[in-house]
């Protein structure tokens, strides 16, 4: 038997969290080092899995299956396909960079890292689970630490409200999906939660039509789909830096991914029936999100709403049900994850020094924080879909997919590109260029080495993918192939 990579990846953070909780709270340094080491280990393993994944063979690989509860057909069943393997990698990346950037947290770091790692475990679990029950299990594990992380370490003004809103939204979404999933379980008559089997359950058309909206939208709430996107900007803003990174970088992908895996892949006919609706909602996401983002004055809200807009593109890609659209959505999940992680890291660095995120009050930050400025610039270019950066590699195929489905949507969605370009450029200029307000003179300290490593790492990823799409696309493509088979060829 080969080394159980996936279960090790899933449980490393969980075990680390327990270890951290057993350490003395005073040993802050040891706690941080333990956290970073564990995160690195998880990243190393996910990199290994990423590159060891056989794209040519496609399908689910690194499969591990342990019977957990045979009576109901629940098993601890891990495996990755081309769609999930980049997301596992993404989680590893965000985890490491998140820990690096949270190095300075001084209030109860033990609990902070422990909760963050429980969250990470849940995320890894969702991306790798091939068992519907376990998927929900890990999904919920990913949700609740969020509450604590935001409430305890969040932005003092809105943290209570935002954390509660976020948790309730996500919880309700997941439970709605859960009901749908249970309906699938009983209707299939297979007595298994194994998604590989459920994929072939051949649910009746009417069943799929009824249940698809529940399952898909329930998860898509976490993906920030309109009109249930409201929790997300609030949550982003209130969360501490590393949590925002996780939240926007990975958690929203969690929703989108689960919506794909459970919604579209298990109920393909339902997806076909409802795809115009999803498309409509996603279109609102894209355009409305971009417009709302452009009128924000809080740096973090700008990024929060831009995430809504970008996640709309992911949903849009799904809704096309076309190979290009799905590939684009898959790449967009990764690209957006890296991008927002970088954005939030950068915002956090600025905020830690200036103690404000109000854009009109900032300025000239590029002088003291050159690397942060460059990071935000590159992030902005990614977010406006500038060719040569990962955003373009993701968005272009999505648009191709839309063209193949309904070209009018593509035309409307394209508006968001210009809107996005205008506001991100304005924000960059106002925050990083121009004159620095006097009260900041001498107060802005340079960032430390760990921060720099994290930023450079994220930047390199975005440029790398932008220039060499082959670094990720073949993986996604192999995963999409399987989705298309389920959708009945094409």
């Amino acid at each position, binding site marked *: 038997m080969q080394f159980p990579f996936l279960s090790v990846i899933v449980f490393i953070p969980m075990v680390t969290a327990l270890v951290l909780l057993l350490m003395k709270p005073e040993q802050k340094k040891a706690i941080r080092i333990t956290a970073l080491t564990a995160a690195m280990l998880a990243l190393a393993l996910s990199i290994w899995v990423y590159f060891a994944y056989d794209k040519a063979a496609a399908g689910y690989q690194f499969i591990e299956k342990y019977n957990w509860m045979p009576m109901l057909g629940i098993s601890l069943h891990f495996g990755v396909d081309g769609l999930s393997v980049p997301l596992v990698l993404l989680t590893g990346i965000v985890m490491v960079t998140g820990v690096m950037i949270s190095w300075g947290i001084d209030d109860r770091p033990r609990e902070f890292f422990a909760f963050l790692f429980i969250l990470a475990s849940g995320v890894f679990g969702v991306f790798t689970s091939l068992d519907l029950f376990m998927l929900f299990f890990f999904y919920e594990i990913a949700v609740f630490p969020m509450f604590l992380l935001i409430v305890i370490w969040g932005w003092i003004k809105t943290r209570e409200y935002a954390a509660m809103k976020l948790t309730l939204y996500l919880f309700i979404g997941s439970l709605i999906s859960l009901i749908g999933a249970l309906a699938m379980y009983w209707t299939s008559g297979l007595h298994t939660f194994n998604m590989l089997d459920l994929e072939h359950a051949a649910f009746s058309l009417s069943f799929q039509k009824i249940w698809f909206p529940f399952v898909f939208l329930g998860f898509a709430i976490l993906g920030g789909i309109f009109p249930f996107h409201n929790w997300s900007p609030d949550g982003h803003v209130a969360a501490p830096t590393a949590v925002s990174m996780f939240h926007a970088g990975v958690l929203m992908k969690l929703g989108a991914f689960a919506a794909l895996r459970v919604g579209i892949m298990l109920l393909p006919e339902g997806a076909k029936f409802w795809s115009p609706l999803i498309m409509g909602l996603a279109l609102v996401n894209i355009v409305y999100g971009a417009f709302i983002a452009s009128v924000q004055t809080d740096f973090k809200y700008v990024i929060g709403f831009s995430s809504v807009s970008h996640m709309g593109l992911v949903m849009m890609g799904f809704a096309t049900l076309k190979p290009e659209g799905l*590939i684009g959505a898959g790449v967009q999940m990764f690209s957006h994850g890296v991008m927002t992680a970088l954005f939030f890291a950068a915002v956090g660095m600025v905020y830690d020094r200036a103690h404000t995120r109000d854009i009109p009050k900032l300025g000239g930050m590029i002088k003291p924080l050159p690397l942060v400025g460059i990071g935000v610039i590159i992030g902005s270019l990614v977010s406006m879909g500038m*060719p040569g950066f990962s955003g373009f590699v993701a968005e272009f195929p999505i648009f191709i997919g839309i063209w193949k489905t309904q070209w009018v949507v*593509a035309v409307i969605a394209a508006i968001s590109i210009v809107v996005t370009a205008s506001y991100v450029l304005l924000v960059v200029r106002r925050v990083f260029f121009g004159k620095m307000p006097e009260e900041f003179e001498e107060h802005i300290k340079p960032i430390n080495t760990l921060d720099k490593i994290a930023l450079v790492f994220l930047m390199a990823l975005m440029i790398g993918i932008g220039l060499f*799409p082959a670094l990720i696309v073949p993986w996604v493509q192999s995963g999409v192939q399987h989705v298309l088979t389920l959708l009945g060829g094409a």
Partner: protein
Amino acid sequence: MQFIFDHILTLILFFPVLAAVVVLCLPKDNLKAIRWTALGASLVPFALTVLLWTQFKAGQPGFQFQEQYAWYAAIHSALHLGVDGLSLTMVLLTTLLTPLALLASFNITDRIKAYFMLFLFLETGMLGVFMALDLLIFFVFWEIGLVPMYFLINQWGSEKGEREIWKGIKVQSRNYASLKFIIYTMAGSLGLLLAIQLLGVLFNTYDLQTLYANWAALDPNGAMLHFFNRVLTVSTVKTIAFWAFVIAFAIKIPVWPFHTWLPDAHTEAPTAGSMILAGVLLKLGAYGFLRLVLPLYPAESARYAGWLAFLAVMAIVFGAFAAFGQKDFKRLVAYSSVNHMGFVVLGIAAAARASGTLNANIALNGAVLQMFNHGLSAAGMFFLVGVLYERTHTRNLDDFGGLFPLVPIYGGILIFTSLASLGLPGLNGFVSEFLVVRGSWPVLTLYTAVAMIGLLFTGAYILKGIKYVLHGPLNERWAHGEHKLTEINLREIIVMAPLMALILVIGIYPAWILDVINKAMMMLFH
């Protein structure tokens, strides 16, 4: 050596990026090293281009030195490069102007590492557009070039000047100009992007040569898109796509009425930025017309050639009038670009209307040569304005006057370049404008006639510029004391020398370059 020949385009294209990375690694304080590294590095693509020019077989149809690498296999896009006479000319222009622009930037001291890196990136962006044989790659480079230019204007543009945008809210002019520049261009490319997507969806490839053939072969009455119950026929869609392309390129050229970003951007850009902006970036639009619009939409182009010619003439006439009306020397030169690029579009319009005829060919030759020529003279003009501005910190024509005796060498160079821009026979501008007018006269007589009025005013504003700067009563301010005007220095002369040489050479012996252009045009639009 064989390796160089096999990969000459990629080498030219990506060498600047490599150089930028090297510059990145240099110490921040060592200004000298950064400047000379960047300049030296930018000479390599130029040398390679000259080599390319010598190896290029003008008579051979199709694209030469083709290279193809997998890029985005999932959507069938590949890094496909190649040159023909048209792109070769443009590549030469780019690789020639970049070192000159870098040399012109030696007086920059603020964050020069970033500055030179951006310039090198910009060069790659522009070269990529000229070399791309894949529509998506074309677009990629088309957009990438915007970013460095945006930051060059935004960060190193002139620091003075404010602009009221909305009820008393004022912004720095350079911020306004740079944002206007990028948003205009991006908004313009939106239609292009959508049209490209449409093509990609239809043919599953972005390879230009395949697209030329397939796109034209579509049945014009066939159904293509559905809008609810409406069916859009191929010809309707083609017309829409045609205009999408045209608008994108027209903004870039810029054609009246899409030109308003240009004077702002030019005025605010640093000197070298203006040189490249006028010298190469505007050509991207015209190149787009020749490389994409005419071959992809011959029928539509012919049908709407009148409109195009109308816009071109408006650009020529209004550009000239506007230039004449300016008080700001740099704005004057900027509007002159609108005026001159109008001739390029006029030539293109004529060629579109009468595709395949001799007249069309002449007009096209003129247009392409005009692109090259304008690149030389506009870059020179902007540089000379920059030289003056650097010493006087003003661009207001009223502040000058009678400078000739103070700076005779500068004055001579300015007059020489201005006259080239004016279209004096014996200098390059004359050759190309004559060809354009000669080609379009039989095809678009009325428009050409009106354009001639514009030509008249070209003379007027150029002479006005010379008069206000060099002649008339001497403004005593520049004669003595701390503001005493100094003569153009050696570095600046070195920048101007190649430009002037080429201006003269093409004016007297245009055949060496026209031969390449002509053969390319013959093969492209026979």
